[in-house]
Structures are given as C-alpha cells and as structure tokens.
C-alpha cells in the first residue's frame, strides 16, 4: 500500500515552473532516495508531502489523505510526518530534551513527564543521553542532526522526510547521522530521503528517484539505477558524483 503517493504534482513560482507533473509513490516500509543536480526541485518535491511547499496542480496523498484538499487538517497531517532539515533547525533557546518534548506536549498532548521519558529513550537511541540538558549551540553539527531525528521520531510518525540531512555536515560527522538513518530504515520506517550520499542510497534505499529541471526523470529499483540508468542525464550525474 502506498504511504505517500504523488499524482502529477506541478508547482510554479510566478512564471517559472519548478515541478513538472511529478508522480511517484512510496510504499509502507520503503526507503526512496531522491537525487539530482542542485536546483532540480528535489527539496521542493519532498516539502510538498507535508504541505510546507504548496503546489498548484496535482495532488499528494499521505496514508490516503489529500494534502492538496483545502478541507484537510494540514496541522494534524504534519504531526504524523517527521521531517529532518539540512540545517537541523533545532530550537536554539531550548535544551536538547525540551526540543524533543515540545511537539509531544503541545501537539500530541502528552504529559511533561511522559514526554521527557520518551525523549530520553530516543536520545539513548541516537547515542546522546549525556547531552540532554545541553543547548543546540553546544553540540556539533552531527549531534544536532541526530537530535533533530529524535525530535521527529518522538511524534511516532507514519513516514520520515529527510531534506539533504548530511549536506551541511563536516565529512567526519556524516556517518554518525547516516548510521542512525540506516538503523531506522532497517526497522521498517517509511523514508523519503533527498541526498547526494550515493553510498547510503546503494546500501539502504529500495528505490532511487532522479530529478532534473523539475521533472522526475528516473524512478528505478536501486539495482537498476546504479547499474543501468536509462537517461543520459542520470548517467552524467552519476559519473560526476561517483568518480571523485
């Protein structure tokens, strides 16, 4: 069953069309990597899933609920989709544990104690228990991103969106974040990941979507994508990104 289904999604910024009839589906428990050159619309596409980026045509269904329908309670829908950003976007004025608890208390209505207990469990999982009382500004980029993943997981999401989760990190911190994501994928989380980490894609993804100029150019099983991408554009992209 498709957890996320995009049907002919199109989006314009004024006269510029940034998404062109994008259709794709992510099944429950599936990990889909979205890649492509910068400016190809990857981030915009992934943000249409939780309605952070509005679109003018087509529709996105999450667990059967339409994102484009004005009657949909987007706030409630967003609470069920975890999102991890390129620049972490932790709340700098809150301690690590409060960052993870905020949504649990204010959106899910959990008690503070219940939320804190859950936050501590998630911190243990991402290996940051001893940093619970610290503030985001006191952590490294990799640590911040792991907290951001914990914050998203605390909402018990149906699916997780990752928007270039490692591109703002120093190289030595990339793996600690990818490890957490890999484990998450193994546990069966439905994931949509915008990334240039082709190693991660080839190890963890089930499918790879390749975008160029606002279009989905390829949507292949991982094995096919890395062995024989059909489009010339994807071949060029792969050769550039893999040989250095």
């Amino acid at each position: 069953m498709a957890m996320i289904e995009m049907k002919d999604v199109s989006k314009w910024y004024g006269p510029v069309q940034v998404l062109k009839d994008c259709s794709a589906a992510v099944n429950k428990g599936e990990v889909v990597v979205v890649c492509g050159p910068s400016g190809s619309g990857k981030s915009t596409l992934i943000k249409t899933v939780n309605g952070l980026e509005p679109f003018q045509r087509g529709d996105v269904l999450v667990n059967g609920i339409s994102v484009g329908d004005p009657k949909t309670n987007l706030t409630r829908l967003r609470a069920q989709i975890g999102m991890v950003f390129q620049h972490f976007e932790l709340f700098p004025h809150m301690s690590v544990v409060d960052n993870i608890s905020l949504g649990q208390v204010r959106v899910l209505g959990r008690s503070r104690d219940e939320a804190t207990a859950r936050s501590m469990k998630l911190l243990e999982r991402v290996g940051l228990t001893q940093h619970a009382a610290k503030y985001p500004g006191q952590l490294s980029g990799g640590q911040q991103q792991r907290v951001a993943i914990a914050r998203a997981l605390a909402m018990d999401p149906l699916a997780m969106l990752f928007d270039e989760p490692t591109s703002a990190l120093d190289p030595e911190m990339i793996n600690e974040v990818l490890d957490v994501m890999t484990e998450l994928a193994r546990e069966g989380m439905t994931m949509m990941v915008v990334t240039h980490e082709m190693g991660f894609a080839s190890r963890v993804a089930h499918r790879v979507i390749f975008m160029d100029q606002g279009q989905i150019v390829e949507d292949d099983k991982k094995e096919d994508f890395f062995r024989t991408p059909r489009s010339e554009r994807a071949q060029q992209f792969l050769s550039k990104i893999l040989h250095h």
Partner: protein
Amino acid sequence: MKYNWNWGIFWQLSPDGRGTYLDTLIAGLGWTLATALSAWVIALILGIIVGVVRTTPVRWLRLLGDAWVEVFRNVPLLVQMFLWFFVFPELLPASVGVWLKQLPRSAFYTAVLCLGLYTSARVAEQTRAGIQSLARGQRMAGIALGLTLPQTYRFVLLPMALRIVMPPLTSEFLNVIKNSAVALTIGLVELTASARSIQEFSFQVFEAFTAATLIYMFLNLIVVAGMRWLEKRVAIPGLIGPGQAMPQAGH
C-alpha cells in the same frame, strides 16, 4: 551673567501647596513614572502583536500592521498628543466627548494612550525585524512538527526574536521615559513640567533643570542596568550574545 545660585531651594516651601519644591519634583517624577510605565506596557503588548501580524502569511493582516506602524511613527509625537487631547473628543458623540474632557486626570490617560500607541509602532518594527532575522527554517521546523501557526510564534519564533531585539527594545524603553515629557503640553505636570514650575515660582532655573536632568539620567541608567541584567539572564548557552544575527533597527 549674574545669577544667585541657591541649591537650598529644594527645601523651601513651594507656593503650589504640595510642600517643598523637592516634593514638587517628586510628584512630577511620580507622574513621569506612571505615564512612562503604563505607556510601555501598552507599547509592548500592542507592538509585539502588530510585529507578529506583519510577518504572518495573511495578507490583509500584514497590510493592517503596516498601516498601523506607518501612521503612528510618521506623525510627530507632539501632534499626536494634540490630536488625541483636543481633536479626538470632538469626533465622538457630544456626550461622550464631554465626559472624556471632564474625566479627572484626562491629561494622564490621554498621554498614556498616545505615548503607548506611538511607541507600539516602534516596538512593532523591532519585533518584525527580530522575527525576520531568524532563519526561515525555524518557522518550517515548527510547522512541520505539527504546531499551529500561533504555537510556532509562541514557542519557536518569539522567544528567539525578542532575545535578539532586546538591545533596541532597551532604547525604546528609554525613549518612552524621555518622550513622556511631551505630555506637559496637554497639562500633565510630570517631571519636566515640575521643573518648569519651580523655575517660574522661584526663578532658580539652573537648579530646577539640573535636578530634572539628573533624575532623568538616573532613571534611565536604572533601566539600562535592569535590561542588561535581563539580557544576561535569558542568554542562551552556546550562542554568542543573545542572538547570532543582528537585525536592522527600524527607523
């Protein structure tokens, strides 16, 4: 210049019946404090609301907020004071206007309202700058978590934005104290008016205005020290200063 210095003037009885000239000054200081602090409360509450409104995605609300700021900051405070005191009651139904003019302490209420609204436009401008200095991603992160827009402002955006704009807000706080002197033009006997009345009764102009000057300075230094203390108290561990970004002050 021949001038009879007399620093003992403050202990002499004043003909205004309040006691000594020092008592006159203290009464004036009381009105200055009451006016400035009440106006500051109004300015903070309205200013933050209007500042927030100007950064929301709702277009008509934004326009309303913009209009508010442009009206109140582009007309001289003195003119606004006259408008509220002399013109506004005439625009109301006759009975309400008369009631308003005969209200005891009507000059005080008018001064508080006028100064509060005027300063709210400036606070709104600072608040807007503070919110806009935050990365767009912060708003997205709050929304993506499932927070409503008001919750995102309350828990994510405002706590950071207000920390960032604390230095310019300190200046606005000082301004509201200094600007309260304009209220003497509508008959409020606050600190400056008290100094002037001492001068008129006793001709000790230098002593009277030296005292007023020192009191204003002392008052403002207390505010500066208080705001510094507050800034340190709410400083966030791991960030340099209260915020990383410096917003443009709204002038």
